[in-house]
């Protein structure tokens, strides 16, 4: 099979999955399926699927609206309705989209929720977001799962027990009630086995950046790779197949000594290897990425690809402890780690993937990520003596992406990296 054809196969698989989901959503009523709005970090995909519900992820709608250049209008619409300029723009984009008829990324109307599953992890805004949506959809049932924060850098048995009790006494009975389907633990276990398999593949995929040149970009392309696992396909055969395929394609790239694929084709020379903290900007995603690949910078690890679950430390879903394992999953998402844990995780990435630098993209409206980033940066700089870079943008508000500012900052940063490399080379001679 040619390189080109292999590359396409995983993409085709992903496209089919996503389109399939949106088609099903468009026909949810006809299909007799209940619709569950939920969030990505701490998502209970497997449980949702156990009850045959279709998931909707408001964050995904928001980011896709941004990529289609619609978010600016939606945000303005929400701001006209008392939403502040200073809060999470995902929320405003979603609310604005709702006000404008709730037409989703594929051009079809997103069905109203039967369930608002507030399984939120590592961000208070999620809670407020669903409080807002509940007022828009008074008939939807809100099911709340409170995920304790890993404040002491661990998941204690009490925390797990607290969550399991919530699943048993609140989530499952309410899901049974809404769907009329009886909870089937064996079904859930089968899915969790598949989740585990997909997670093994994902870990292997993101680990391939150890190679030089790195065969993938773990941030800009990474967000596509985590798509299926994040939007409800964890626990399915499709996801396993997708990740296997992707892994094979990447192996082939390694064999051929190729670098990552960018929107403008193969990246020719890997000059800098970076680790990035913080979500990407979605309104100018391509331009943003281009600044990096034009400079020969490849991202070998990013925290953002871990918001839907941190698998590189070895944690996996475990079918033999289904509900406990769901609880641990929720607690084990990136923004649910405390700051010292985040620092350790990023430091590990920088060391293991031999990064030349560390860059923070600070998102104006996301306190969950941003508050504390400056302290993290300083600690990483001190600990690893690695050059750090800092840029600011926003998720989906086009008003807060300043191309020239970001470009200038990054160019100076790359100059610094270049000088450092030169010195290192001189020293080693």
């Amino acid at each position, binding site marked *: 099979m040619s390189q080109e054809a292999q590359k396409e196969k995983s993409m085709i698989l992903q496209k089919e999955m996503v389109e399939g989901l949106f088609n099903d959503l468009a026909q949810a009523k006809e299909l007799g399926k209940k619709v569950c709005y939920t969030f990505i970090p701490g998502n209970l995909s497997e449980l949702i699927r156990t009850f045959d519900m279709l998931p909707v992820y408001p964050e995904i709608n928001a980011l896709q609206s941004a990529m289609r250049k619609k978010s600016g209008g939606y945000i303005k619409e*929400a701001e006209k*309705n*008392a*939403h*502040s300029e*200073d*809060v*999470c723009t995902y*929320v405003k984009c979603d609310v604005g989209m709702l006000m404008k008829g709730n037409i989703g990324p594929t051009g079809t109307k997103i069905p109203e929720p039967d369930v608002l599953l*507030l399984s939120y992890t*590592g*961000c*208070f*805004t999620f*809670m*407020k*977001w*669903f*409080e*807002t949506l*509940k*007022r828009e959809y008074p008939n939807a049932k*809100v099911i*709340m799962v*409170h995920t*304790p*924060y890993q*404040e*002491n850098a661990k998941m204690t048995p*009490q925390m797990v027990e*607290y969550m399991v*009790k*919530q699943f048993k*006494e*609140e989530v499952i009975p309410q899901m049974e009630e809404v769907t009329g389907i009886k909870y089937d633990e064996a079904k859930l276990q089968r899915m969790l086995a598949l989740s585990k398999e997909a997670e093994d593949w994902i870990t292997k995929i993101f680990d391939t950046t150890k190679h030089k040149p790195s065969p993938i970009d773990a941030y800009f392309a990474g967000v596509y790779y985590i798509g299926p696992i994040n939007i409800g396909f964890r626990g399915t055969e499709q996801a396993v197949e997708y990740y296997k395929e992707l892994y094979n394609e990447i192996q082939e790239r390694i064999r051929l000594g190729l670098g990552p694929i960018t929107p403008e084709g193969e990246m020719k020379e890997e000059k800098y290897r970076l680790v990035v903290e913080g979500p990407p900007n979605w309104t100018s995603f391509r331009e943003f990425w281009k600044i990096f690949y034009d400079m020969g910078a490849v991202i070998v690890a990013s925290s953002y690809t871990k918001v839907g679950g941190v698998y590189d430390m070895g944690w996996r879903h475990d079918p033999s402890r289904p509900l406990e394992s769901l609880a641990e999953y929720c607690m084990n998402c990136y*923004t649910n780690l*405390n*700051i*010292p844990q*985040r*620092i350790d995780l990023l430091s590990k990435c920088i060391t293991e993937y031999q990064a030349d630098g560390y860059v923070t993209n*600070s998102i*104006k*409206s996301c*306190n*969950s990520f*941003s*508050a*504390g*980033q*400056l*302290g*993290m940066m300083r*600690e990483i700089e001190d600990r690893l003596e690695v050059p750090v870079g800092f840029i*600011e943008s926003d998720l989906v508000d086009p008003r807060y992406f300043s191309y020239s500012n970001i470009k200038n900052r990054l160019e100076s940063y790359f100059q610094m990296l270049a000088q450092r490399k030169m010195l290192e080379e001189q020293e080693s001679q």
Partner: protein
Amino acid sequence: MKELKQIINECKELSFDLNFTRAKKWKEEKPGRVLVGYMPIYFPREIIHAAGGMPVGIFGGGDRKQIIKGDAYYQSYICHIPRSIMELALDKHMDHIDGFIFPSICDVIRNLSGIFKQHKLGKFVKYMDFPQNFLPQIGGVFYQQEMEHVLEYIKEINGVEVTTEKLNHSIELYNKNRQLISLIYDIRQEYPWRLSIEDVYHIVRAGTVIPVEEHNEILEQVCAHIKQNIGVPQDKIKVVISGAFCEQPAVGLIKAIEEAGCYVVDDDYMLGSRMILGDIDATTNKPLEAISNSYINQSQYSSSIYDVHNPKENRLAKIVKDRGANGVIFASASFCDPSLLDAPIFQNAFNKMGIRYIAFQYSENINQFKVIKEQVGAFSDSIKLWEDEPAAVSNINLTATDSCKH
């Protein structure tokens, strides 16, 4: 009994003593005493007291602390309070405080707990995760475990084992504290001119940095004074302040609102001191359970508590009604997610209910209130002007809106 003026002056001193001198002195008086700092909003102070400790409210530096180092920790689009708390920590204002509690209110405070851990500030740093599940057998149990965790930390420092008796005694003292604060608000509802909101603020805030026993004495004296017919009524409207539960507005701003023509008859400035409505059962042999039940069943509405089954807009509207207020002033700290994300919920509901409001943002260190004063003045004038108009339609059953002219 001390003169009211003297009491107020003392409270003023205490509440903005950024070195927490009274607390420090208290600690030095006896071995085994510990000081536990807690960040704004609610924390069950009873348990610290029962463990031989003193809870110390850390509410930022207000306009009394210039921020230099703290700015290096927080981007410009993050509220002001975490940087002023960092400044206090780095400038060693809190060196005698043994441990720090960060109640779950938002992601900023949460991550600030991590920065404290990173810098190894204090002997312990605890992010206090309040349950968002309100079933006693689920969220209640979790809450008790969280309190036990705090107690373990204190025990590691002073070896004190809390007993049922000690806890019940502490609960009683804080019940008394809440009753007295509540009485002040009740008296002011009728006679707001007897004590300005600025004075109330200082009196309540002082209670967060001194022993509760001393604060109760102060409150008793204040109540005795304001039960008297003192002061002169002025032509002002009555308002409720909402949204200022964490980063505190500068005192000048608190004052400016009343000066601009409003009596503030309720507020959420020092919400933590008033979070639990009514008494906590001080007679059970399971006091931690009693505290947890009070959180589950008797909490004031708050932006940090998931509210779908008890919507906050109705709860705030009820306060407006019960206090006979003419309107609401939404005052949010700039970039305060919980407050700003709640604002549309409140405002959309109030538009429908016919409750009048204005909204503005502040930062703890601003000391230019001209614009806010003008805004509040115009608000007060417009309410006075429309006094004879019937209340607008209200879609919830609230006779309160009789007094909320639209």
